[in-house]
Structures are given as structure tokens and as C-alpha cells.
């Protein structure tokens, strides 16, 4: 765990000394829209609630697809039907997360803009979105192979699914640790 702490401290120091982000955060904090979000009663917890609920739907949608790949849930559906049911939730909720996440960052610039966990999350989320797009495209184009892999418990499909769900757990952890890492 020490290397994570070392990484966060090093990234925080780099953000503070080598980027314009601290100045930008202070400038942003003085803008009317940032002030508006910060001073509106319950705006931050309401945005955080919507953000959390959207993340919940993403992680559950991925869980349901993963469980179908493992043939432990959704067995009454084909993999194509499972994908059709849950994949749109991932994308729509990702959009909700994007909007609410940036509104939160605008409302609390010093908390987020100089935060190493926040910027790590901002790098990991687009990577996760690209991987999701890759998996979805692969499933859509090769649905017969994926269905066969699920039926015969293909190890590659299972490993890809588990690694992807772990990546989202890391994203959720980064989101929570924004509140705790040094800035």
C-alpha cells in the first residue's frame, strides 16, 4: 500500500509545483458558477448522490454482463440480450457521471483540481470507457464466439470480464479517496 501513498504524494507535489492547476483552481473558485454551486444548499450532496447512483448502475450493469459471461446469472437470456439490456445503462450513466462529476469539480475546485486521486481517476475513466467500447464492439461483432466462450467457460472471456470489473472498483476507490489524499 505504501507505493500508492508515495505515488499520490509525488503526483500531488508535481501538480502543486509544476502545473498551473493550483492557480486555476483559485481562479475557478471565484467565478460565479463555481460560487453558485458551492453556496446552493445541498447542491454538492445532491450532485454526489446522483453521481453515486449512476456509478452504482454502471457497476451493476457490468456485474450482470460479467455474471452472464460466467453463466451464473441471466441464463434465461442470450448474451446478446444481456448486452442489449445493460450496455446502454453503462453509457447513459457514464454521461450522467461526466456531467455531475464536472459540476462537482467546478463547485469545489481546490478539493478536486489539485487532487492526485481526482486526476488519476480522470485518466483511468477514459481508459475504462475505451475498454468498455472495445469489449462491447467485440461482443457485438463476435457474439457467437462470446456466447460459446460463456457456455464453455472460456478463460479469456472470464479473465477480461473480471479485470474490467476490477478496473471499475479501482475507479470507485479513486472517487472515494478524493476526500482523503493530500492536495
Amino acid at each position, binding site marked *: *500500500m505504501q507505493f500508492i501513498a508515495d505515488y499520490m504524494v509525488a503526483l500531488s507535489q508535481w501538480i502543486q509545483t509544476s502545473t498551473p492547476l493550483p492557480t486555476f483552481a483559485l481562479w475557478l473558485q471565484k467565478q460565479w458558477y463555481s460560487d453558485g454551486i458551492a453556496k446552493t444548499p*445541498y447542491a*454538492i*450532496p*445532491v450532485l*454526489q*448522490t446522483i453521481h*453515486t*447512483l449512476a*456509478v*452504482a*448502475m454502471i*457497476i*451493476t*450493469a457490468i*456485474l*450482470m454482463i460479467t*455474471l452472464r459471461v460466467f453463466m451464473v*446469472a*441471466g*441464463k*434465461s*437470456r442470450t448474451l446478446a440480450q444481456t448486452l442489449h*439490456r445493460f450496455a446502454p445503462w453503462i453509457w447513459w450513466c457514464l454521461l450522467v457521471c461526466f456531467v455531475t462529476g464536472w459540476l462537482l469539480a467546478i463547485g469545489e475546485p481546490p478539493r478536486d483540481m489539485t487532487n492526485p486521486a481526482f486526476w488519476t481517476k480522470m485518466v483511468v475513466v477514459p481508459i475504462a470507457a475505451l475498454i468498455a467500447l472495445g469489449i462491447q464492439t467485440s461482443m457485438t461483432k463476435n457474439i457467437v464466439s462470446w456466447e460459446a466462450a460463456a457456455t464453455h467457460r472460456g478463460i479469456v472471456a472470464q479473465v477480461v470480464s473480471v479485470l474490467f470489473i476490477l478496473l471499475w*472498483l479501482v475507479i*470507485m*476507490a479513486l*472517487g*472515494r*479517496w478524493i*476526500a*482523503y489524499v493530500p492536495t
Partner: protein
Amino acid sequence: MDFQPLWDKIELSPVGDFVASSAWAFPTLETIHVIAIATVFGTVAIMDLRLLGLASSTDRVTDLSRDTLTWTWGAFLLAAVSGTLLWVSKAHVYMRDPWFYIKMVLIGVAGINMAIFHHVTWKTIGQWDGGRPPQAAKIAGLGSIVLWIVVVFCARVIGFTLGVYE
């Protein structure tokens, strides 16, 4: 009755002291708590949206229940354990925060709602398993999703109000 000595004793227990004094314990437990609650909400929402006729309308309710219920209960247990460990570290602060009480009561109401659904409405499942749920099931689904949304909101507000009661 003054419970303050009890809360102090809980906080000073080895577990309470460890969670409070470790730099990693509280944020790690909170991360586990959030992941668990997210899984509870997500799996409950899949069922609720089906009961409301808003998603998975062609799926049998019994199939969805089988797919989600184990995860709902497993994640709820994880949330309860991690939540208790968080509470132990700052018991007296949580016990002063009205949002904590609201959250606990709403979780209780959500449990009662679920119990009524599974013990009463579920008896006629054979008649509507693959089709449109009856009014009672829709009300249970609506109640459940609204209650869990408010529970998550209360949890977030606790994060903001806890400092006030330190």
C-alpha cells in the same frame, strides 16, 4: 438515559481505536461501504424497474430475482459490517447526527417493504411472472427505489454534517 459512556466505551475499544487512528482504515472501510451500497442499489434497482414496467419487461421476475437477490443480500451484509466498523470509530458523533437516524429508519422501512413484497405480493407471482406486475408490486418497486435513493442521499449528507457534531 445518557448513552454517552457507552459510545465512549465503543470508540475506545480496540476496533474503534484502530479504525479511528489508522490513516488507511476509515477511508478503506468507506470505499468498501460505498461499493457495497452501490451494489445493493444497482441490484435492487434492476428488480424495481422490472416491477415498475420500465426495464427488463420481457424477463420473468423470478429469473431476475434469482440473478440479483444473492448479490443484494451479500452486498448488504458487506455494507452493514463496513458501516458498523465506521460507526464504531465515531459512535458518539454518528449518534448526534439526525441524518444518521433518518438513514437507519429508511433502511428499516425498505426492509419492511421488501418483506411485505416477498411474503404477500410474491404469493401470486405465478399469475404475473412473465407479464405486467400488479399494483401492489408496482408500489413495492416504487417505494423501494425511492427509499434507496434517499438512503444514499442521507449517507452523503452524513459526510457533510458529521463535522458539525464532533
